[in-house]
């Protein structure tokens, strides 16, 4: 690929190390998100996926390493300043404001913005993506179903009109039909608005189908990265993340051979 075709890199992590108290949760991660692409971060429970996102959005400060967003270093910046640069985070477990109405939740998503007209337009666009939210516009968010809350959390982040959207486990606790619905919207947002997305998922199948590029995280380290097409056909991914079973001792042997597996 020559330089003219390669899209601009809008998020770049170099050798990030983060701690949860005394525990080193991320052990030197480097990754890139190009403009207009969906990049996914796969990994089992406790691999450090959420920590990576929290470190990017400034909830956690990295101990070492650099994070560049649109060419600006953002490590150690306050979380609310990072949001203002155009980086929105949909946290794991939705984290809606339970006693605020759907409309107020969306208004809070646009908190850094001052252009009333644009905010009103974006609110209509969010209702376009998620018509069910419009039906519940004045209901407290705590009364919505899990799927609706997830829609609200995504819609709320879109209200900031971000350049980069961080999505943490959007499929968590949702029925297969809802997962499909939500991921259709994620693809639409990416295609229609050209929004770059960094997606963290445990559901590797749907993540690989949605994203363009993928990183695999194991105990705080990146052990594999490639285009999603190639990842989907990789034997390791099929076995450990997509659940394809292999007969005989070959899988066992590959486990031992794999250098990055600690």
């Amino acid at each position, binding site marked *: 690929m020559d330089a003219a075709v390669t899209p601009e890199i809008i998020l770049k992590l170099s050798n990030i190390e983060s701690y949860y108290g005394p525990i080193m949760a991320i052990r030197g991660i480097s990754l890139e998100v190009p403009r207009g692409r969906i990049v996914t971060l796969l990994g089992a429970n406790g691999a450090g996926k959420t920590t990576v996102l929290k470190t990017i*959005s400034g*909830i956690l400060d990295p101990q070492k390493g650099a994070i560049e967003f649109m060419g600006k270093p953002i490590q150690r910046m*306050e*979380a*609310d300043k990072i*949001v*203002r640069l155009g980086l*929105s*985070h*949909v*946290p794991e477990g939705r*984290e*809606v*404001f*339970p*006693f*605020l109405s759907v409309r*107020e*939740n969306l*208004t*809070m*998503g646009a*908190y*850094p913005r001052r252009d009333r007209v644009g905010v009103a337009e974006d609110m209509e666009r969010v209702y376009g993506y998620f018509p069910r939210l419009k039906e519940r516009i004045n209901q407290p968010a*705590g*009364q*919505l*179903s*899990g799927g609706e*809350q997830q829609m609200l959390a995504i819609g*709320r*982040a879109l209200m*900031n009109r971000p350049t980069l959207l961080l999505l943490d486990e959007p499929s968590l*606790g949702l029925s297969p039909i809802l997962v499909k619905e939500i991921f259709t919207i994620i693809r639409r947002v990416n295609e229609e608005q050209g929004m770059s997305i960094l997606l963290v998922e445990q559901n590797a199948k749907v993540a690989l189908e949605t994203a363009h590029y993928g990183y695999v995280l194991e105990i705080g380290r990146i052990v594999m990265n490639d285009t999603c097409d190639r990842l989907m056909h990789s034997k390791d991914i099929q076995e450990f993340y997509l659940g394809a079973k292999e007969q005989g001792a070959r899988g066992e042997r590959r486990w031992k051979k794999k250098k990055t597996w600690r």
Partner: protein
Amino acid sequence: MLDFVQQLVSGIALGCVYGLIALGFVLVYKATEVVNFAQGDLMMLGGFFAFTFIGMMGLNYWVGFAAAVAAMALFGMLAERVVVRPILGYPQFSIIMATIGLGYFLRSVSGMIWGTDDFKIDTPFSQGVLRIGSLVLAHDKLSVISATVILCALLYLFFNKTTLGTAMRASSENMLAAYYMGIPVKRVVSIVWAISAAVATCAGVLLAPITFIHSNVGLVLGLKAFPAAVLGGFGSIPGAVVGGVLIGVIESMAGFYLAEGWKDVAPYIVLLAVLLLKPEGLFGLHLRKKV
């Protein structure tokens, strides 16, 4: 009957003051989950500020009132910045001890500055009375009630109709999510302290014609306002005001109709009864979180 109405009005007036102090407890608690035991002392300090501006410097009542409110709003922000923010994240008890310490500090410093005498602020409402038939209502009591109604209406509009007010409710419901939205949570907390100190000052100035201002007034009233906040369901703003009014009315009725001594006990008996039947308080909210 006349006695009853008069007792009712003075009970409501006193209760409004409790309610305003309780409102300060609730605002700070909702925003930061910190119980500020110096709330009553902020009221006392606000009263002394107003006394200094009006009584000593001879400013117009309204100008002095506004100046005291503004000065105390700044003081509230400073108190949060210096006393509370450095220990946020430590166990609740440390923070509560710090606010109790702040209260002691304010009481002794104001004792040093203004002495331990009682002070009185002359207000436009100190003398007049309203006569309806044979019913006589003092202006100072009515002024407390109407000021509380106006303040509550303003706060209601602020919290429900403005983006900053909504952001404050959002931060108090889910502080982490507020960070994710780009809400400057630390500044929001500062403003909450400013508002609660300003509301306390209003209570202090309104109270000045009824009770006198002295350095321990905050401790005494704070101990009455705290049950008011609990009665209303700690964390509910309308609950704080209703709780305050209830306690004020019960106190004043008990003082008039019951034997000596019941006045101070009756509010607590009612509080215990309410908490037995409805442990979350009258207006307590149950957080229902769906998974």
